[in-house]
């Protein structure tokens, strides 16, 4: 056991967290800042400020949430121990009187974690839990501690009459004292003396002891009637139960600990639950399965974007994909909707699909998609996998609702969860910890994650986010081919990057070091840098490449008008077949069916029957079956037999010579005439223009109705399509309602106040118009005072661009380096970082 704040001797022991931090070396401070990155945003000016910030409630809560279960249990134990507590006392609380080898060996590590994170400071003889943490973790009636311990004798007797305390002393067999303080001390002394307390308990009747046992593991509170039963009365008399409120008694912490054999936790969990392998497959089977799935992933993304090629689904006004479009996509991909959401999100995360940003907004493939298509399969996969690992978007949420009951849609807003990459990485790292080919029991992975972050379990009802993220990670990894049959594949392992290099030794040496490396508390940024990621992805691609099936250059044609591609096809071949035949079945192979419609499609695409015959003969490994050749010829025979075109009008004349004449006339060129039959000309010009043109050329054409009658032309009345009458437009803007009026007045007054409020300098006197300047300590003090008094103050503020402004602020909360308050200048509640506040001045009182 050692500490990172190495006191030279007892006399130099730190008296505060700031001093303890000051005594740390750079590595120690770096470890702190790495583990609690919120402490350096913004960068504190000095260690005092760092210590203050490290003790703020928000920051401590965040740090506690990141503790593993045993470190948290240790912190909880410290919260119920004396302040300061010695290492021995802590060990007693954790391991109990009987001792526990596992706890003893794990405790130095847990304590080291707490120290690194500046939650605990002081030497082994004087361990102090940061006050805020103690407040958070110590049991109170409102918030029982997970330890199930109640208040100490001292706390529980705080409001008790001195006379009553002396009575308890007498009943417990202690001499009376002069004052309550010494009486409480004497009682505490009795309860912490194991032998004397044993004797006291032994003298009690069995039912009294049972009543105590019931409360021993918590909750420590019990209900009693106004006239308690005799066996309870005995306990109350001796102070073994102390009243907290009428009808409620509590078991004092000291007594509970004695009954528990000294242990603060019923089940200390010093060792993380192991991730167990449910099944073990041969590593090559795992790799091959994963590679097969990786190939499917590529094919699916390609299919998705092909499906969206000619205009994807519309973007909802709130962003994202409508439920109907997702359903349609799921049907097209032949997968369940959540899986479809995953593929869509994956393509989005990899930058292959995005909104086109047009007025009529739709999703479409990005130019990056075309580049991606050109890459070798393994590289394409590694790009997807990399995007997946780093994405904060969680497709698993799609289809659900957010806290406000709004539907969450795939590709829509509200799907980002910042914990996702970390959980993904952690889950895969745990998988990597298993031997090759071992598929974990998912529950053991989840149990391990819960051990590592126990505090997040607090969410009631549904599973907490981390657990859900972990479940999604397992299923998504399988879909993507990172895992195969549940086990991490070789390329998946490579994708994860090499095993983390050991961190500089900021962790305590001692018994804890004998644990395997991954049992150590690992600093939180498990997401590697982009460069590392790229290198890892490249390595993964190299491993994957030989496992992916080689594209084939042939198909097998069969007489039942199907073609089977016994593997993935080379792109040009696949593209042609997609046009020429319908896909019937997908997977490792593809089954195509030729139908008259599909052949017609190919002919429409500009192929000729001869092309198709040549194509089939070239790529078929078997002779082209006669029915197929016949089908193509049969469809081709009729294809294009009927021709369809657009014309605006026609000229009909029984005299072919006259039509010849018109066609030959140069003046007829603008009419766009074309001969369809000896007696018919089609024109691009509309009938009116045609009539006019022909008349201008000196002919006397007559108009024909649709039925072929000659139309008697008369000027026709012109009408618009149906229209609604115009809405009346009222004069001037609408009359504002009361809410709007009052808000406007308030804003005006606030601006006025900011501009005119005379200021009373708090620090150095200053010229009007200048920013108030005070030292940071003064600023903090003034703001905190303002919170208490509820007064508005005048602050100088420099924003991120360096622009200075003066604002009138009524602070509500000063916390974590930020001040939150009602900004009269802006007329809304705002939060300002303290370090950007140049100074504070009180407002001149009226």
């Amino acid at each position: 056991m050692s500490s990172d704040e190495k006191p030279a001797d007892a006399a130099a022991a730190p008296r505060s967290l700031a001093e303890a931090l000051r005594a740390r070396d750079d590595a120690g401070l770096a470890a702190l800042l790495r583990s609690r990155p919120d402490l350096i945003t913004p960068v504190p000016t000095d260690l005092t400020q760092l210590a203050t910030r490290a003790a703020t409630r928000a920051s401590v809560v965040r740090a506690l949430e990141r503790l593993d279960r045993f470190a948290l249990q240790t912190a909880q134990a410290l919260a119920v121990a004396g302040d300061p507590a010695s290492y021995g006392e802590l060990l007693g609380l954790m391991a109990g009187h009987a001792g526990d080898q596992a706890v003893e060996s794990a405790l130095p590590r847990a304590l080291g974690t707490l120290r690194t994170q500046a939650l605990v400071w002081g030497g082994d003889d004087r361990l102090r839990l940061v006050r805020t943490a103690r407040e958070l973790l110590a049991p109170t009636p409102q918030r029982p501690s997970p330890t199930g311990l109640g208040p100490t004798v001292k706390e529980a007797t705080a409001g008790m009459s001195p006379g009553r305390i002396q009575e308890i002393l007498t009943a417990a067999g202690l001499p009376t004292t002069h004052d309550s303080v010494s009486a409480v001390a004497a009682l505490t002394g009795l309860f912490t003396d194991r032998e004397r307390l044993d004797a006291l308990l032994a003298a009690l009747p069995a039912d009294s002891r049972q009543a105590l046992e019931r409360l021993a593991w918590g909750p420590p509170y019990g209900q009693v009637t106004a006239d308690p039963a005799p066996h309870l009365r005995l306990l109350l008399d001796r102070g073994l139960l102390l009243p907290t409120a009428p009808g409620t008694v509590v078991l004092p912490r000291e007594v509970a600990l004695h009954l528990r054999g000294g242990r603060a936790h019923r089940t200390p969990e010093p060792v993380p639950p192991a991730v167990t392998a449910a099944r073990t497959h041969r590593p090559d089977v795992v790799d091959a399965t994963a590679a097969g799935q990786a190939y499917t992933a590529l094919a699916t993304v390609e299919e998705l974007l092909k499906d969206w090629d000619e205009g994807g689904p519309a973007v909802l006004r709130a962003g994202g994909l409508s439920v109907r479009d997702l359903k349609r996509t799921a049907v097209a991909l032949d997968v369940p909707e959540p899986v479809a959401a995953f593929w869509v999100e994956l393509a989005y995360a990899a930058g292959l699909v995005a909104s086109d940003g047009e007025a009529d907004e739709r999703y479409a493939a990005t130019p990056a998609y075309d580049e991606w298509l050109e890459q070798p399969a393994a590289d394409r996969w590694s790009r997807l996998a990399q995007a997946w690992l780093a994405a904060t978007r969680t497709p698993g949420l799609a289809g659900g609702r957010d806290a406000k009951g709004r539907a969450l849609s795939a590709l829509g807003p509200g799907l980002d969860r910042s914990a996702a990459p970390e959980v993904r990485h952690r889950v895969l790292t745990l998988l990597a910890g298993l031997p090759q080919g071992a598929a974990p029991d998912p529950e053991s992975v989840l149990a391990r994650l819960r051990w590592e972050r126990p505090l997040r379990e607090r969410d009631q009802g549904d599973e907490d986010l981390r657990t859900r993220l972990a479940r999604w990670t397992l299923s998504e990894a399988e879909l993507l081919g990172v895992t195969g049959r549940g086990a991490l594949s070789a390329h998946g392992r490579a994708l994860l990057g090499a095993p983390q290099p050991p961190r500089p030794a900021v962790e305590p040496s001692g018994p804890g070091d004998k644990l395997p490396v991954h049992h150590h508390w690992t600093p939180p940024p498990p997401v590697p840098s982009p460069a590392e990621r790229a290198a890892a992805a490249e390595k993964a691609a190299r491993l994957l490449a030989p496992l992916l099936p080689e594209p084939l250059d042939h198909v097998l044609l069969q007489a039942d008008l199907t073609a089977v591609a016994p593997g993935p096809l080379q792109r040009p071949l696949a593209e042609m077949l997609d046009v020429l035949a319908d896909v019937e079945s997908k997977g490792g192979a593809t089954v195509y069916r030729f139908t008259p419609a599909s052949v017609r499609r190919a002919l429409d695409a500009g192929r000729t029957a001869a092309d198709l015959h040549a194509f089939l003969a070239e790529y078929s490994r078997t002779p082209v079956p006669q029915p197929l050749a016949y089908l193509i010829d049969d469809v081709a025979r009729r294809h294009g037999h009927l021709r369809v075109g657009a014309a605006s009008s026609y000229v009909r004349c029984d005299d072919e010579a006259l039509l010849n004449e018109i066609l030959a006339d140069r003046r007829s060129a603008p009419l766009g005439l074309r001969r369809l039959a000896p007696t018919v000309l089609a024109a691009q010009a509309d009938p009116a223009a045609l009539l006019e043109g022909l008349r201008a050329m000196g002919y006397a054409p007559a108009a024909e109705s649709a039925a072929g009658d000659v139309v008697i032309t008369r000027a026709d009345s012109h009408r618009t399509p149906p229209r609604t009458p115009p809405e009346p437009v009222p004069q001037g803007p609408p009359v504002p309602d009361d809410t709007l009026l009052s808000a406007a007045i308030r804003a005006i007054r606030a601006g006025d106040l900011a501009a005119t409020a005379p200021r009373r300098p708090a620090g150095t006197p200053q010229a009007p118009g200048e920013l108030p300047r005070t030292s940071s300590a003064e600023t903090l003090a003034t703001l905190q005072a303002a919170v208490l008094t509820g007064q508005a103050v005048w602050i100088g503020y420099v924003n991120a661009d360096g622009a200075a402004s003066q604002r009138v602020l009524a602070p509500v909360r000063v916390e974590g380096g930020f001040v939150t308050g009602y900004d009269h200048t802006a007329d809304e509640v705002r939060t300002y970082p303290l370090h950007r506040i140049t100074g504070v001045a009180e407002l001149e009182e009226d």
Partner: protein
Amino acid sequence: MLRVNGPLIVQSDKTLLLEVDHPQADDCRRAIAPFAELERAPEHIHTYRVTPLGLWNARAAGHDAEQVVDALVQYSRYPVPHALLVDVAETMDRYGRLTLVKHPAHGLVLTTTDRPVLEEVLKSKRIKPLVGARIDADTVAVHPSERGQIKQVLLKLGWPAEDLAGYVDGEAHPIELREDGWALRPYQKQAVENFWHGGSGVVVLPCGAGKTLVGAGSMARAKSTTLILVTNTVSARQWKHELVKRTSLTEDEIGEYSGTKKEIRPVTIATYQVLTTKRKGIYPHLELFDSRDWGLIVYDEVHLLPAPVFKFTADLQARRRLGLTATLVREDGRESDVFSLIGPKRFDAPWKEIEAQGYIAPADCVEVRVNLTDSERLAYATAEAEEKYRFCSTTETKRKVTEAIVRRFAGQQILVIGQYIDQLDELGEHLNAPVIKGETTNAQREKLFDAFRNGEINVLVVSKVANFSIDLPEATVAIQVSGTFGSRQEEAQRLGRVLRPKADGHQAHFYSVVARDTIDQDFAAHRQRFLAEQGYAYRIMDADELLTES
């Protein structure tokens, strides 16, 4: 790089593609046959489908999920999708959670090894009327008469029950096969064995492969009174004839129960028609099922089983049931009812395999496309929708083509099969051949068939009455001029007419005459699908080609 170059490709839609030319193809076929249904068997790649029915079938036959997964993984060319393996295991796990057993005190009961499953199915509205009192937490009584019904419903709910309640032996009656100069073919033996082992079920064999003998073989195994249900009287007579010839049964032991005769003997052959005759809202001939303690019920041409017979069959679950068919394709999609009421498929042999073994004749299938004349085209275009098919399938040109084909095969036994009586009469007139249609009396039919068999008549024109179960051993050419729209099984049955092995081993010919560019062609394509999937490749010919040739 492929790790294993296996013959099987497992698709994500649960179809299995088997490359037949692969050296391991036969081993693979044997490994997957127990659980995968052969869906298509064209020349290079056979398609199997893994269905829940197939998987449960395999479970019923004693295979477990591990074997299925092993077979897939062992022969697969590419990694098998994990999801599919999981799905296989989960599906197979559903079978046998519920069992139907005989309880010594409560009669037929449904028990479970997994209580929540029982709770789940008992909540179903369709199960409620079928079960009786709850005997204990894991057992519930079932009305014995609802044995078939409950099996059917449980299957639909996805929790198929294992039926261990056994069969009644029925009234014993000695039946032996008389194998003098002939013997059951290996696949027939296999079919009988599979059926007997499974208790009840369906045997699928191509037309002409000797399904009647499978029936006879099964009767010889059962050695009990047997009720045989057939499609029509002619077929009934042929069964009788065949049974007398092949087994120890005598004429007197076999009764015919049809429109004309109502004999009930130890072995009774009844027609579907008489059973489904309804008088005053009831089926008066239903009592036939209860008239004797039948030990075996044989359903011939089970794909034609009429709906009312399904209902009766549901009540016969305690008796062994054998279904026989060439094509378990029902145009009404009630294959799953066949599975749950008659029983699962116990034996299936691809047509081409039997052909390769020489038990059915190789066939040359030709689709002859005729053009409508210009005036016919105009008339076709203006015909009412319901008249269109009739119009184009009875085009004048078909007659010429038919005559040409008949000329070409002059001297051989030729069947001309069609749908429309007018057309057939006209053809009969031109070909100078007798016509058998619905109104032809049974006596007359038998007479004509005999004449045809003896070679006195070379050409016979038949309507769809002759679709099934007429034994015309020497027909070598069949010409189909029209059909029942797109019926796949009709096409297969008609091809079956010429598949009986020929004495001289020569090829059979099957001509389908189709009017080009009309719905006749669309229906023909649909009709041919089953056979094309069985590996019968249709050649397409132009009528002109054929007319100029001859």
